[in-house]
Each structure stands twice: as C-alpha cells, then as structure tokens.
C-alpha cells in the first residue's frame, strides 16, 4: 500500500444488468499525473464517482490515499479536490462567491479563505471577472473556475474529469502547465480523465486505457506500445522478400513490404535488430536505413479501443 495514491482491486460497479466498471485492477503511485483514458461510456466517470464515495462498489476494493472512500468518505473528500464532468458551479453566484463557498466548506478561516480565493482567481486568469455571475461565463471560463475551486483547499490529490474540455488552445496550455506544476512542485497526485491523447502524452507520467468498464492497458504513455512486438522500418536494396528463407533472419522475425524499397520487420525481441541487419548484410542485401518504430499513445489507444468514439 504505502506510497500509492489509489489502489483498485477487482473493482466492479453494476447498474441493473449493466456493468459500468468491471474488475478494475490498478494502482497509482503518489505524486504523479495519472491519465485515465477511454471513449464515452467507458466507465471513467463511474470510477471517479467510486473514488470520492458517491457510489459504492458492487464488488472489489478501492482505497484512495490509503482510505476507503465509502467507509471513510469524509476523510477522503477532505483531502481530494474534485472537478467532475459538468463542473457544477452555482450560476446565480459570482465567481468569487463560488470559491468562497468552497473555502467555507474547507473550513478555512476568513483571511486565509480570502487569500486563497484571490490567489486562485488570479492563477486561472479570472480575476477581472471575479464579481460577475457565473451564468454569463463561457464553457472555458467555467472549466477554469471549476479547477480553481478544486484547488482551493490545497488538496493532497486532484481528481479531474475532462478539465480541458471546452478550452481553447491557449487555455489548454495554461491548464497543462498548472497541472504539471501542481504535481511536480507540490508532489500532489493528479488523477486525470481525458479524451485528449496528445495532452495525456505530454502531461501524464502514467496512463490507463479503459473500455467497456475494463482496463485494457496501463503504463507510461511513451512505452505503452512496447507490449506489442517491436518493429523496425527498413530501406533496403537488392531484396525482394522471396529470399527471406535463404537469409538467416532472427527467430520470429517477419518482413512486410511497405513500398518498393521500404520494409517493416517485426521482431520477436527488441535485441534482435542487430542480428537482423547482420543477416541482411550477410545475404547481400543493401541496408540503407534502419529506423526503430515507436507506437504513439494515440496509435496504441486506437489499436485497443478501435474506431468507436463511444461505447
């Protein structure tokens, strides 16, 4: 248990006959930005609701910061800043009043509360609109105010459901940098549900991909594709593919033609690249270029989730 911010063991949640989350098994180390990726209806929001004790698991166990969010809900919620999909701001109140309410809930004293409210409004760039009613805010402004509200109590952990939805590119960069600084400077754990794979690749130390309530993959975003067989892109001359059998290629290596001189070699082991090149050269094949291929998070996501944007 120790340093894990979140621990899930066989976590399931059923709504009637539908399994929203099924047998989730993962842990999130403290102090990292963890991306939770998946199409709409994959079970991300249900997982978030389980994490803050809004829902009870049908089976399995879940611990957030080492505590049970159902049995010790108040303890967990006191230490987690949460921003749900939909944000949930009070439209009839001003931006400042919304944050003041959050400060009161967090039991901050008056001067500290005022200080935090002012600092948060400045941090997310809403200082000039602080006295305006939230009903007149754009979606992007709401997202930023929701983020400021989640941060008001200086929580140990942030749980954010689509925090960059509706933001323009400049604000996405602002939120990204804010999240990174929160995780790096303060050692705060961030659990981030997002659709933006490029953002996840930049922000997250680890990601998990979920679909149909099931965990499909988990790991560092740049290494997630490594579970697939390693491959290299080759530019060859004097090779037509028919001579493969005559060459002493490493065991498990398979060649696939991409164009006249372009080939992709799939290897059984990443260490086999040198052996492959040596075998080609020994067989009289001209090797002009060897480029190891890396699967991007987006490619891996699309491979796992498929073309379906929604469940």
């Amino acid at each position, binding site marked *: 248990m120790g340093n894990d911010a979140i621990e899930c063991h066989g976590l399931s949640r059923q709504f*009637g006959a539908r399994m929203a989350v099924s047998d989730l098994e993962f842990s999130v180390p403290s102090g990292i930005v963890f991306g939770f990726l998946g199409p709409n209806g994959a079970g991300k929001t249900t997982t978030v609701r389980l994490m803050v004790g809004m829902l009870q698991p049908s089976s399995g166990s879940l611990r957030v910061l080492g505590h049970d969010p159902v049995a010790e809900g108040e303890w967990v919620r*006191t230490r987690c800043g949460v921003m*749900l999909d939909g944000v949930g701001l009070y439209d009839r109140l001003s931006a400042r009043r919304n944050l003041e309410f959050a400060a*009161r809930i967090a039991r901050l004293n008056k001067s500290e509360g005022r200080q935090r409210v002012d600092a948060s409004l400045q941090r997310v760039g809403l200082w000039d609109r602080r006295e305006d009613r939230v009903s007149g805010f754009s979606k992007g402004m709401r997202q930023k105010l929701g983020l400021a509200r989640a941060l008001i109590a200086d929580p140990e952990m942030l749980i954010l459901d689509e925090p960059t939805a509706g933001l323009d590119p400049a604000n996405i960069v602002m939120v990204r940098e804010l999240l990174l600084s929160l995780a790096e400077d303060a050692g705060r754990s961030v659990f981030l549900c997002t659709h933006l794979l490029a953002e996840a690749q930049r922000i997250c130390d680890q990601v998990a991909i979920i679909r149909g309530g099931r965990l499909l993959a988990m790991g560092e975003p740049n290494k997630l594709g490594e579970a697939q067989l390693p491959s290299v892109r080759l530019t060859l001359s004097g090779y037509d593919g028919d001579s493969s059998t005559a060459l002493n290629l490493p065991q498990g290596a398979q060649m696939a033609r991409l164009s006249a001189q372009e080939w992709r070699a799939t290897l059984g082991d990443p260490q086999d690249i040198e052996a492959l090149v040596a075998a080609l050269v020994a067989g009289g094949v001209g090797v002009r270029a060897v480029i190891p291929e890396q699967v991007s998070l987006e490619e891996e996501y699309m491979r796992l989730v498929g073309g379906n944007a929604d469940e």
Partner: protein
Amino acid sequence: MSDLTAMLWKEAVELIGHRRVAIIFAIVVVIMGIFPALIMYHRQTIQAANSLIFFGLIYVLLGIVVVVGQTASDLVLHERVGHTLDYLLTTRLSAPAIFAAKILLSAAIGYLAALLVLLVQLAAVGLIGGMRFHWLFLGLGAGQVAAFGVTAALSLYVSVVGTFVALRVGEQRSAYLLSVVAVGLLLVPFILGWLHMSLTLGWISKAALVLGVIALALAAIGMRVFRRHMLVLYLQD
C-alpha cells in the same frame, strides 16, 4: 455546525439572487395580505373574533404553503439541474448539513412570509378596509399562538415535506404539486377541527404543538434516512 453554517450561507446568498422566488414571495405577501381586507371592505364589517382567526389566518397559512412549497423544491431541484448537487457530494459536507440547511432556509422563508402577510393584513384592514386600526386575531391569545406558533410549525412541516418530495421527484412542477397535496392531506384534520370546535387558546395551542411535533418528527426521520446519494437522481438507480 460549520458545515451547516456554510450551507446556510450559500443557500441564503443564492436565494437573494433568485428572481423567481423573490417575485413569488412578493406576490404572495401582497395578495394574502390585502385579500382579507378587500373582503372586509366589501362586507363593510369586522366579524366576530373567532371568525376573524379563521378568516385572516387561512390566508397566512395558504401563503406559507405556496412560498415554502416553491422554495423547498427549488432549493433541491435547481441544484440538480445545474449539477451542483454532484459537486456537494464530492465535498466533505455531511449529509445532514446539506439536508438541514435546505429545510431550515425554506422554513425560515415561509415564516418570514407569514409575518409579512400578517403585517400587510393589519395595515390593509385599516387602509383598504376603511376601518380604524384593528389587531384582528392578534388581539386574542389564541390568535397570537396561531400567528406565531402554527405558522412556525406549518413552515417547518411544508419545508420537510417539500424537501423530501424534491429529493425523489426530478421535476419542479410535479415536486411542488406533490408537496401541496401532501401538506393538504395532513391539514385536513386540523381544518375539520377548526370548523367544528370553538377556537379557544387551548385548541389552537394543541394544534400548533401537534403540528410542530409532527414536523420535527418528520425532520428527524428525514435526517436519519437521508443519504448523500439521494441528492442525485441517477445515483438512485
């Protein structure tokens, strides 16, 4: 206590900016305050003391039902529509604090409306009714108990019922109508008693006490059975 204070602060600040509730409140106070005086003017008489209690007070009680019924359902349902109840569920706020703040505030609004209706009635009888100042039923001990006791008990009762109903019904108009029906059913024995018994101080006091006890008992049961997930309909599936 600070949870309750935080919730009460939020509800009050939010309600101040709520135009529809403010308009309904003002209309109720004016109409329920002036209407008895208009009838008196038409009849050109101040009726017997017992009849006055029924006559003026019934408008006060009606005003409470309208104002509290609206406010109680609005306090729950507008949060549901705006997904702010979801937010409350993610905070450290306790369930009783959320529930109690909504009940207390709508009951207080109802009580305030009742007192204002009484004031308007007193002023209107003199001004519109064309008569000299008259204390109406407030001149009697039974009337005072009714004005300050029955109204407080009824405000609390309607508030508890309205909040409960709104937690279970997802639509404002349905919640409001259901609350009014529920309140009306409970009031039948009181109205019958009212019509068939002389309105003595003892009877009115007992009525206020019984209504108050029922309201408090309902509120206590509500606190016991209320669970955080009831705030959000989709979590009740």
